[in-house]
């Protein structure tokens, strides 16, 4: 929703940057929670793929809007870190959709998502 508003003005305020961080943290967390949940429950491949594709699209939307965004000088390092993390997150979501679900790959994806989320939480401007 926010990307819709900021599409015209590409300069993010401090508060908007925090909001973008929260959006990426939320996406990483949601994917992680869903993968953990799927490990203990039966879902059809179609349903899993469909949900992951919506999450991937959400990531791609954030990624696209961040690509053209700028921030005030003190926030620039945080914005760059966010851009990198979101790109990594979107790529992970893309890989998740294309790989056949198996336990080792899933564990590795969850660990990677966890690491992305922790970095985002650490880098988020206060």
């Amino acid at each position: 929703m926010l990307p819709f508003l900021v599409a015209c003005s590409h300069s993010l305020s401090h508060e908007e940057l925090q909001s973008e961080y929260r959006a990426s943290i939320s996406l990483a967390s949601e994917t992680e929670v869903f993968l953990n949940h799927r490990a203990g429950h039966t879902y059809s491949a179609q349903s899993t793929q469909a949900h992951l594709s919506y999450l991937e699209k959400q990531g791609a939307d954030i990624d696209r809007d961040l690509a053209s965004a700028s921030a005030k000088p003190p926030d620039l390092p945080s914005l760059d870190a966010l851009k990198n993390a979101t790109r990594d997150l979107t790529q992970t979501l893309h890989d998740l959709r294309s790989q056949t679900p198996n336990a080792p790959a899933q564990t590795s994806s969850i660990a990677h998502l966890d690491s992305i989320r922790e970095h985002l939480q650490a880098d988020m401007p206060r």
Partner: protein
Amino acid sequence: MKKLLGLTFGIMTALGGFVDLGQIVFTTQAGALFGYQLLWSIVVGTLAIIVYMEMCGRVAVVAGEPVFAVVRTRLSKPLGIITLVASNLLNLLTCAAELGGVAIIIHLLTGWPEKLVLLGVGLILPLIVYVSRFQWIERTFGLSGLLMIVFAVSAVVLHPDWHALARGLNPYVHLAGRHQALLYAYFAVGIFSAMLMEYEVHFYSSGAIEEDWKIKDLSENFLVSSFGSALGALLTVALLALGAILFLPHHIFPEQLSSPVLAGAWPYGQKALIIGGLGTIACIGGASIETALSGAYNLCQFFNWPWGKNLPRKSAKIFTATWLGSFLVALIIVLAGVQPLQLVNFSIIFGMAIMPFTYYPILRVAADKNTMGKHVNNRIDTVLGTIFLILIVIAAAASIPLMVLTHIGQP
């Protein structure tokens, strides 16, 4: 049996009215951000819609006037036309969003290509409306919508914090910072608005006439409006609880329709996903039908043209062309790539802004002894109607500023 089947009208109106695409995502987001703290807005919204649905049904039966005939006679012509145009634009946007929502759920359940599904939905729903009598539409979608009860079961099985839920009845909470306070207000207004979406009362009052209700059916009117709304409220509370239980602890702000639908199946997996998904399709599909028909009802009632799903199509050509056209335009909007959730967020907030122009004339007519005779509002109806109208006006005034200040509810 007839009375029991009559309840399906209230169920479809309420489920399609406030357990629609917007409410499903909006309420889950509210739970994900504020836990159970916004429960009070669901309760207030439910009471308000029961009061006004009952009034609409009573006015329709006693005065023979559905909502837009009331708008025509009680507002000035320019204001009436503005209300008509705004309401029908909102109906169109909401219809487009709901069609998109149905396609998303079918894609989630089957994996079929979403655009193709959307095309199919855009053809099948109008076809169902075209070939079915009003009563069969309401029964099919009302009863199928009951499958959404799986959301309530899941919420209970996941052990909500009942004490925190009870504390959610108190609107006064301590919030950290201006942005959190604004978000809290935004979601309170949004939930309230989604429960009072105008097309519900347009559809309900027109449906009362379609169903050929008589004065002797007035006792059923309260039962139908309150039972359907209470059921819708129960599901809305379940969505709030699912957001609070599954998303809040993980800092997740769900932005996809698939997220709350999966949350509704969380304890059970695929089988519950199919049941809940089918219920959601019925509710969202019902909402798209309500909005398309409401657009046609509004137009024909305002200009006093023949209307009615049960009339021979030759006798109500403009009515039929309008709802068919609404489906077509809605389909084109969503096929053009506009995101259903963006559409519905705008329709909820702008719907709130014009809501007083729908609810004020209803209250005026229902309290008018000359029109209503012995079925005029009693003192309690008028006091409650006035209190809720004041709340509607306050929420209407606050809705757009809150949307701007919170960047459309972005945490």
